């Protein structure tokens, strides 16, 4: 149990830093924060695979005790999660860039100021 302590600490540091970055006003820091946050979640999944210290990869053959191998299921899950996280990060990057191009600013408070009184909801593209 205590051997998982380092993983727990690492997740805490990653998630804490990620939240700090996400709360920042700058787009780039937000993006990095989300990347860190998804990595923190992936680490949580990995930690569920079992104690990694001294355990074997989950390939079983003659003469290997299954009790000494890590659980393969979370490793399959994490692979899916990484792929999904990657695609979402790609989308977020493009969205933030689009907002930067459209409004000419890369921080949230200035975004509000540029919008000013108009909420941009009138008479949109009518198709």
């Amino acid at each position, binding site marked *: 149990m205590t051997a998982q302590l380092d993983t727990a600490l690492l997740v805490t540091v990653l998630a804490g830093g990620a939240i700090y970055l996400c709360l920042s006003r700058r787009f780039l820091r937000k993006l990095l924060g989300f990347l860190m946050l*998804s990595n923190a979640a992936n680490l949580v999944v990995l930690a569920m695979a079992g104690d990694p210290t001294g355990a074997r990869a989950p390939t079983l053959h003659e003469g290997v005790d299954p009790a000494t191998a890590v659980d393969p299921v979370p490793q399959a899950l994490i692979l899916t999660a990484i792929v*999904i996280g990657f695609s*979402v990060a790609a*989308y*977020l990057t493009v*969205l933030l860039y689009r907002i930067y191009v459209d409004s000419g600013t890369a921080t949230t408070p200035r975004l509000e100021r540029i919008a000013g009184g108009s909420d941009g*909801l009138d008479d*949109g593209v*009518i198709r």
Partner: protein
Amino acid sequence: MSVLVGLPIALPLGTALLALLFPRPSTARRFGVVAVLAFQLGFSVWLLETVMRQGPLVLALGGWAVPYGIVLVADTLSAIMLGLSSLTALACVLYGFAESLREHEHPLRVPLLLLLVAGIHLAFLTGDLFTLFVAFEVFLLASYGLMTLQMVATRTRRALPYVTINLVGSTLFLAACAFAYGLFGTLNLSEIAVRSAELVGDVRLDLLALLFFLVFGLKAGVFPLYYWLPVSYPALPTPVAAFFAGMLTKVGVYVLIRMFGTVLPAELGWLHGLVAWVAGLTMVIGVLGAVGQSRMRTILSYHIVSQVGYMVLAVGLFSPFSFAAAIFYVVHHIVVKASLFLVGGVVLRIHGTDRLDARGGLWTAAPILSIAFLLQALSLAGIPPLSGFWGKFLVIREGLSQGQWTLVLLSLVASVLTLVSMLKIWFGVFWSKQPEGVPLRLTPSSRRMTAAVCLLVLVSLGIGLGAERVFEVAEHAANETLDRAGYVQAVRAVNQGLKGGEGP
């Protein structure tokens, strides 16, 4: 026959891919999409009828035995949700086709909407926690795409709150999946139901249930995690906004019903109390937000938050009757809310704005549209004999019989304020005089759009007038949802049909 359970996922997915192969918007493509959605609606009704008669249909994907493989489970609740999502998608697609000429249609809109539908259907059908996560990601990615497709430059910033809150929600969901696997050693919902019953009183189970409530409450838009919703929904193109308004938050409500009803043990009384109180606050805060707004679509968006409160309140009251009330409310709300957003789109088309103080005169110029709005608005506020009255009546009756006076009072206050803000829209947009010299843009397309709205209005009227029959179905679904042993048994029974083994 259980292989047909996969059809509501495979059908929109396949159609989306086909639509991508033929990207040019044409009449044949439009016709094909409508035909597929109409078939899907018919199939969902058939599925509902079948599972009500025979019990849940279970499909073990790839022939893997139950706790190891992924299962799709279609029970009454899932079938109801499938039908609603097919109906809303059909109406929104028809409306979209009426709204825009073929040449102006974006080639990616229909495929993205179909992918969204496929993801939502996977979420309704899956019997596996991690597949639920994947389903959420599938439909969220499609919804991100739909949200920013053709967005004008002044609106792109409005997509940011939606995307960021859902990213945080997804990350938390992934972590919750990991904790569930660590705690239960399985991700299969029916096995989790078995093992969580053995862990009652364990603080880890309590924390995990709280985390689930946080994640799915965020998707449903409950207080205090709702602020993203009124910012982003009014900026969407109308057919997309109507589908989002109808279905997306209700996926969160569905998962809450499933989680608290079927998967987590019934002994989590403190959490049910918390859920009910959060719901009470959601109702009032949402409707207070609506009263202060001056745009039709923003008001309607705040009402989604408020109405989600009623459904979650019914979940929190936690009895077979309140679950039936929640399911009835979901049925009523999806249809009414989607049609109100579509009405908002027609108003926007005719007036060029949906500001309440700027224009008016629709009562004389477009009486059918006005009647459609009036019916749905009064239904939302809960005037008998429309569907919303029955939904509110059922929730409040259960609240009274449990002696939750404060919560009942909150819901009545929210109901009155709903009526106030609906009347505000009515007087602002429909009843007041159109200023001199400003023409109304009444076109053939706005009439076709009204026709698409009327489809949903008729269904909603049917729900109100046939409330007894709908409630019977909802009650059946609620009893089935709360029957953990029956669910587990139905899922495990699939192993007997598999080749070469009975499973554990």
